[in-house]
C-alpha cells in the first residue's frame, strides 16, 4: 500500500541569519513517487533536499520519513541516500570500491557484496567496469556510478541534487529517460532537484514549484502546465502570454473579462471557482492560439494584428503578433503540420488573425 505521507514535511523553515532559505513549507511525498523540486537558483530547493538528507537541520518544523521523525538524526543514520551535483566519486578508489563503499556496515560477506556490485554495474549498463580508476571515467559514467553507489544500499528514498546539470544535451535527455525507467523498475521514492522545467516535466509524477523559500504549487506536470494557480508558476513553466484585465461578470458558463488588447474575453477554464469581479490576469499559452492569414468567420474570441516577427524551428514556428492596446507582441506557437517551403514575411505589415478556445483562457491572480 503506497503511503501518501511517506515523506512528510511539516511547517519546516531554514533560516541562515536573517535569510529565510526555506519558509514554512508543508507537503507530503507519496511512496514510490518521482517527485521533483523545481525552481530558479536560490529558491530553497537544494536547502530543502539537504534537510531531507540530514546535512542541514531545520530551524523550525519537522520532517518525517516513513513515519519516523528525523529531527537530530545525522546523515549516516538516515534511510536516505543522495546523488550529489558533483557526483562526489572517490578519486582514490576504483569503480568497484566506490560502489561498495557504503556496504561496509551491511553485515554481508565480501563475496555477497561483490555480487551485488556486479549486479549494480549491469543495472547501470557498465558491466566489467569494476577495476577502472575514478579518473578514467566520463561525466555520464560518473553520474551512473554515483547512482549505483546510492542504490546498492536500497534506501527508502533517493535524493538527487541536479545530477544531470553537467551533461551535454543529448546525454542529458537520454539519462532523463533512463532515470525514469530505473525509478519505475526499482520502485524507490525519488526526490529530484532541478532548475530545468523541461527536465522536471519529462520525469516527474508530481512537481513542487518553489520560489523564494516557498512552495507555489504542487501538481502533476500536465496540471501545472494547463492549470497554473498563480502567475509565477504559469510564467516559470513554459512560455505564456499575460493580458491584464478586469472581471465583468458571467455569461452562461463563461466568465467575462475586459482585457487590454484582446477586448472582451470569455473563459471557461476555471469553471465555477472563477472570480466574479476584480482585477485579474488572463493568460494564454502560445500553442493555444490559432494563427490565420485570412480573416476567420467568427464573432468572439478573435483579434486582428500584424506579424512582427517569425521564427522557423523545423517542427514548429513561433510568431510574434503585435495587437492594438498591448505593448508586447503576443507569442504564438504553431505546429508545421504541412510542408512549408516559403518563409513567412514578418514586416510589421502582414495582417494576421488569432483565434482561441474559451477553455484555454486561464484566469490568474497577480
Amino acid at each position: 500500500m503506497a503511503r501518501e505521507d511517506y515523506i512528510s514535511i511539516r511547517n519546516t523553515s531554514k533560516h541562515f541569519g536573517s535569510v529565510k532559505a526555506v519558509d514554512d513549507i508543508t507537503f507530503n511525498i507519496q511512496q514510490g513517487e518521482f517527485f521533483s523540486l523545481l525552481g530558479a537558483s536560490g529558491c530553497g530547493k537544494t536547502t530543502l533536499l539537504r534537510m531531507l538528507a540530514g546535512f542541514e537541520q531545520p530551524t523550525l518544523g519537522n520532517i518525517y520519513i516513513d513515519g519516523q521523525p528525523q529531527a537530530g538524526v545525522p546523515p549516516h543514520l538516515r534511510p536516505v541516500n543522495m546523488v550529489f551535483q558533483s557526483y562526489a566519486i572517490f578519486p582514490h578508489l576504483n569503480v568497484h570500491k566506490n560502489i561498495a563503499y557504503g556496504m561496509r556496515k551491511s553485515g554481508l560477506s565480501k563475496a555477497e557484496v561483490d555480487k551485488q556490485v556486479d549486479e549494480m554495474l549491469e543495472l547501470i549498463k557498465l558491466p566489467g567496469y569494476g577495476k577502472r580508476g575514478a579518473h578514467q571515467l566520463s561525466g555520464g559514467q560518473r553520474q551512473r556510478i554515483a547512482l549505483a553507489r546510492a542504490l546498492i544500499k536500497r534506501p527508502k528514498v533517493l535524493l538527487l541534487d541536479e545530477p544531470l546539470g553537467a551533461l551535454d544535451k543529448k546525454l542529458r535527455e537520454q539519462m532523463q529517460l533512463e532515470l525514469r525507467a530505473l525509478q519505475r523498475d526499482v520502485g524507490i521514492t525519488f526526490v529530484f532537484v532541478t532548475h530545468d522545467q523541461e527536465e522536471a516535466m519529462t520525469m516527474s509524477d508530481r512537481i513542487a514549484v518553489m520560489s523564494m523559500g516557498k512552495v507555489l504549487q504542487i501538481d502533476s506536470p500536465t496540471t501545472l502546465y494547463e492549470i497554473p494557480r498563480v502567475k509565477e508558476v504559469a510564467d516559470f513553466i513554459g512560455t505564456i502570454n499575460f493580458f491584464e484585465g478586469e472581471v465583468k461578470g458571467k455569461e452562461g458558463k463563461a466568465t467575462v473579462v475586459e482585457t487590454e488588447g484582446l477586448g472582451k474575453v470569455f473563459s471557461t477554464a476555471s469553471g465555477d471557482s472563477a472570480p466574479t469581479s476584480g482585477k485579474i490576469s488572463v493568460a494564454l499559452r502560445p500553442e493555444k492560439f490559432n494563427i490565420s492569414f485570412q480573416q476567420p468567420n467568427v464573432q468572439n474570441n478573435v483579434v486582428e494584428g500584424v506579424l512582427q516577427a517569425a521564427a522557423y524551428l523545423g517542427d514548429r514556428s513561433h510568431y510574434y503578433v503585435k495587437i492594438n492596446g498591448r505593448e508586447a507582441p503576443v507569442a504564438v506557437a504553431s505546429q508545421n503540420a504541412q510542408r512549408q517551403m516559403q518563409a513567412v514575411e514578418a514586416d510589421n505589415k502582414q495582417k494576421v488573425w488569432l483565434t482561441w478556445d474559451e477553455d484555454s483562457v486561464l484566469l490568474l491572480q497577480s
Partner: protein
Amino acid sequence: MSDTVSKAGSDERGVQAPQVIESKHEGHSWTGEAPLFIYAVWYLAFLYIPVLFLPLFSFNDSIYVAFPLKGFTLQWYADMLENPALLHALENSVKVGAGVAIASTFLGIFAAKAMTRYRLPGKGPLTSFIMLPLVVPGIILGIALLVISNTIGVDLSLYTIGLAHTLVAVPFAMLVLMSRLEGFDKSLEEASLDLGENAFQTFLRVTLPLAWPGILASTLLTFTISFDEFILAFFLAGNEVTLPIYIWSQLRFPNRLPMVLSLGACILVASFFIVTFSEVIRRRGVGTQSGAAI
C-alpha cells in the same frame, strides 16, 4: 568538461574570428625577457653565493676562512663525526624536531579542517591570530616565553624548546594543510556520511587518504623549521642543547670553525632535500583531488 565543442576561427556565417596575438617570444628568443632574466640570476646569486661559501670552505685544508684555497680535505668532516658533544646536540635536535613535527601537524590538521569545512564565526580574525607567531620577532617571543616559564615555575629543557617551536610551526602546518584541504571537493566527505560512515570513519576512509601528501609535507616542513631554529631554542634551553646552539657556542674557537662549516654544509644539504621533497609531495596528486566530473 566541455559539453559542446565550439568552432574557432570563421564560422558558417563567414565572420572571421580576431587574429590570435602572436606571443612576443616567437622568433625573438629572449630579447623581451632578457632584463628580467638577468635580474633573476643576480637575485639568486646574491641570495645563495654566501651560503655556498659554507660547503666550499668546509673542504678547504686550512683553519682560516680566506682565499686562496689551500687544498681539498675531508678532515673537518671526520672531526665532526668524532665529536661527542656535537653528536649529542644533533640527537637533541632530531628529538625536538620530531616532536614538533608531530604536534604541530596534529594541531594544524584540525585547525585546517575547521577553517575549510565549517561556517565558523570570526574565521578571519582567528586565522590572523594563529598566524601571529610568524610576525612577532623571535627575540621578543623568546623572552616572553622565558618569563612565562619562570613565572609558572617550569624548568627549561628540551620540552620548553619543543613547545616554543610548536608555536611557530603550527601556522606553517595549518597553511600547508589548508591549501591541501581547500582543493578538495567538500561533497566527498558528505557523500561518505550519506553512505553510512560517521565523522571519524569518514576522516579515516576519505579525508586522510586524500590529505596524506599534505600531512607528510607539513611534517617535513615543521621538522625543518624546528631543526634550524636558533633564537627560541637559545632562550629556552636548559642543560641540553640543540644543534644550532652548539654551533653558536663553537664559533668563538677559531680552530673549530671549519668543523662548524662542515656541519653547516651537511645541514644545508639535508634541509634542501627535505624541503624539496616535501614540496614535491605536496603538489603530487593535486590534480586528482576532486571527485567531480572533469
